[in-house]
């Protein structure tokens, strides 16, 4: 993507759709198809979380291009290519004992399929996988390293705009704000549950939300939102307790990026 190799890819789903409509008319014996609606492609990638955390940077306004290739030289080995792909959702999930995974969904507003490459890409080799045994989560004053699992999601809805005379958009704008949601399960230690009666219009707004992880070499791979979150609130909590296991709490936060 953007001439940089993406590592750790586990699964790719790529497609494009030509929106054709059955056109009928009075007195017809048989109808015909005509384009109705925008051309669209989509790309969904699942990868292991690496130190480069490749997709998180694409939540911005700029589109990306990319290629699925068989070999290092994309000019003659393209399986699928796309232009003007915009990240629409980013999900990172992790649980104890498994390598964290990332799922990134893109909508493609320009060409897609068997298209010409934009040259060779930079092969980077200095990446390593993230270790799920070293996860810290902090929200406000609360921090914990007793994380059983987490699921972080960022949605970026896009709005393409078209001029007459063109089938590709002249602009793709992000529909703000970007919604961030995070669900994590922790072992109950010092965490205090909220009260249902606290759920009102003045929900407790927390800041300084972060998830810190490390790769197997001890290098940090962090999701640090700092003060960039607007109105990050605790929307639900579950408590679970059973014989022979510690008390677990699942907490769900939802907010918006400024």
């Amino acid at each position, binding site marked *: 993507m953007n001439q940089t190799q993406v590592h750790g890819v586990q699964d790719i789903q790529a497609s494009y759709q030509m*929106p054709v409509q059955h*056109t*009928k*008319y*009075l*007195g*017809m*014996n*048989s*109808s*015909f*198809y*005509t*384009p*109705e*609606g*925008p051309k669209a492609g989509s790309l969904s990638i699942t990868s292991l979380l690496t130190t480069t955390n490749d997709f998180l940077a694409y939540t911005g306004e700029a589109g990306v291009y990319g290629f699925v290739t068989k070999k290092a030289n994309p000019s003659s080995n393209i399986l699928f290519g796309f232009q003007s792909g915009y990240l629409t959702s980013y999900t990172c999930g992790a649980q104890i004992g498994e390598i964290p995974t990332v799922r990134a969904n893109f909508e493609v507003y320009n060409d897609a399929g068997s298209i010409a490459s934009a040259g060779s890409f930079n092969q980077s080799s200095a990446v390593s996988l993230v270790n799920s045994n070293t996860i810290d989560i902090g929200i406000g004053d609360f921090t914990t390293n007793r994380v059983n699992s987490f699921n972080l999601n960022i949605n970026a809805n896009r*709005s393409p*705009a*078209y*001029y*007459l*005379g*063109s*089938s590709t958009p*002249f*602009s793709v*704008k992000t*529909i703000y704000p970007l919604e961030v949601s995070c669900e994590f399960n922790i072992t109950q230690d010092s965490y205090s549950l909220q009260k249902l009666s606290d759920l009102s219009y003045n929900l407790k707004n927390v800041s300084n939300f972060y998830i810190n992880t490390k790769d197997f070499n001890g290098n940090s791979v962090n999701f640090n939102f700092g003060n960039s979150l607007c109105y990050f609130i605790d929307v639900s909590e579950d408590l679970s307790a059973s014989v022979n296991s510690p008390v677990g709490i699942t907490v769900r936060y939802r907010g918006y990026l400024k």
Partner: protein
Amino acid sequence: MKYFNECEVVFNSRFGSGVVLAQNASIGISRNIDSTYVIGRQNSSQVLKTKADETNISFTYFPNISDPIYKCFDYAKTGVFTNSFPESVIPVQVVIAGITGSFYPSRFGLTINPNSKVQASVSFSSFSDLSGFLNSKSAINNLNSGSGIAHSWNAKVSGTATVYNVLDFSYDMSINWNPIYSVGQQRPRQVDLSVGQETFDFTVEDANSNFSNAALATAENAKINITTFGDQSIMILNTSGSRIDSSDTSINLDDFVKNKISLKRSF
């Protein structure tokens, strides 16, 4: 009982003839009668005609290659009707499901939205009798492809208006016809074109805070050339001679600031 695929709309004129890709069609006949009352009587004394009979037909359709219907309306703007009546080109013959008559073009509307087929809606008026009866179509209508159909992807805005980025466009032309009757005649001896007006609505990104002469001149020279997927002409709409009538700027959530510029022209 007839189903829609048994009922075709056929346009016959010197501008071209053929089956129209109509989405709907209607025929309305007005006899224009009204009751008369006299002082002192509770009930109406008579029912009289107040105007001559008039038939209006309307249909929406997808313009196709060399659209003869737009050519018919475009021809009405030439002004020949004031000089050389009776005109041999208009009225035109329109057949809707076997019912036919001679019609004068009265309204043409066109809308172009991004990523969509161009759709037109038209109305015609007739001041003479209709003929025929509800009948099945006479021919088999098969179109192998939609390559000749008008589509926004092939609607090019050119001229100096290219400084504006046109997001959507609509056009409307209305023509008033004036039938002239002789005493003792139920049908007009001639039909004159009295007045016509066109409206061009452009939705663009840019908003002009004050309509200077320069902006006015720019808008005047816009041209919308609609072609087929094979680049054959369907119609060309030219705003030459028009004047800016209004401008409306709107701002909505999750959308661009849009400015709708409306141009008008009369003939």
